[in-house]
């Protein structure tokens, strides 16, 4: 049996679902519901794959990606490789409502966010520093490099391109602890 209004979200992130539902239950819009539900995960980190303080890159930095889409108007706002701003879904909505664009990325997206009033702050936490330090101690395994030397399956970079490209199956798999 179906019933509307309804919220569905990936993974067992209960608080996010409850936050989104509270908007719909009080007559709010689908767009506000999605923004509020996703923002709850950014604050609570959910399983660590959302928000500041998780998934450090090879340089130890946490960057964020987010998007929001209005199915009525087909408007979209999205940010990618966002730095220093915790509320990525909020910035995505600002891209949709405060520009004619769809997607802003990287350092310039962060400057846009600061100009629009979002707070710039460090996205690093003890958790992300620990993940990064353990990774360095473990010879930077796993990583997403290929066809480079020194051998990325054994050692950290810096890497240089290998002259001969080997074509082989995808070795690295995302998993429950590290995915999009």
């Amino acid at each position: 049996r179906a019933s509307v209004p309804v919220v569905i979200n990936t993974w067992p992130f209960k608080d996010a679902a409850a936050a989104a539902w509270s908007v719909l239950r009080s007559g709010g819009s689908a767009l506000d519901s999605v923004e509020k539900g996703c923002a709850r995960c950014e604050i609570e980190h959910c399983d660590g794959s959302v928000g500041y303080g998780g998934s450090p890159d090879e340089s130890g930095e946490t960057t964020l990606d987010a998007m929001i889409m209005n199915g009525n108007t087909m408007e979209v706002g999205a940010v990618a490789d966002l730095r220093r701003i915790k509320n990525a879904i909020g910035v995505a909505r600002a891209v949709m409502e405060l520009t004619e664009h769809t997607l802003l990325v990287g350092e310039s997206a962060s400057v846009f966010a600061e100009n629009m009033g979002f707070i710039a702050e460090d996205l690093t936490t003890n958790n992300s520093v620990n993940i990064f330090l353990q990774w360095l101690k473990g010879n930077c395994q796993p990583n997403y490099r290929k066809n480079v030397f020194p051998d990325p399956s054994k050692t950290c970079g810096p890497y240089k391109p290998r002259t001969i490209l080997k074509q082989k199956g995808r070795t690295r798999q995302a998993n429950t602890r590290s995915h999009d």
Partner: protein
Amino acid sequence: TIGMIALDKDGHVAAGTTTNGLTHKVPGRVGDSPIVGAGAYADSSAGAAAATGDGDVMMRFLPSYLAVELMRAGADPSAACKTAISRIKRHYSEFFGAIICANTTGHYAAACNKAPGLSQFHYMVSNSESDIPLLKTVDC
């Protein structure tokens, strides 16, 4: 990553995602989440979908867009989700990924690809049937 779909009392549909991406990624790497039609897609006249998993692979197949277009063509959410997953599976049999789908009548479903560490996929549903969010599970 969290991917979310909402249908409000006026039948408006929205979708969104937010993530901190893959751990130990190459700096500058962006996954599927912020890519329209990959991480999520919404059209109030057809439905919405949102995906999660190995974004480097999944984004190439635009699973959320495909699922919404299948629902527009009359597929139920479960069939739409499964087709979107199987389209990727043809090329990457062990990819790690899942998708949630909802149509304009409020019917919803999810599908996932059986991979190491993913044999079931858990997702949340909130509607007026129960004031607290319901945990749902689908076998991959």
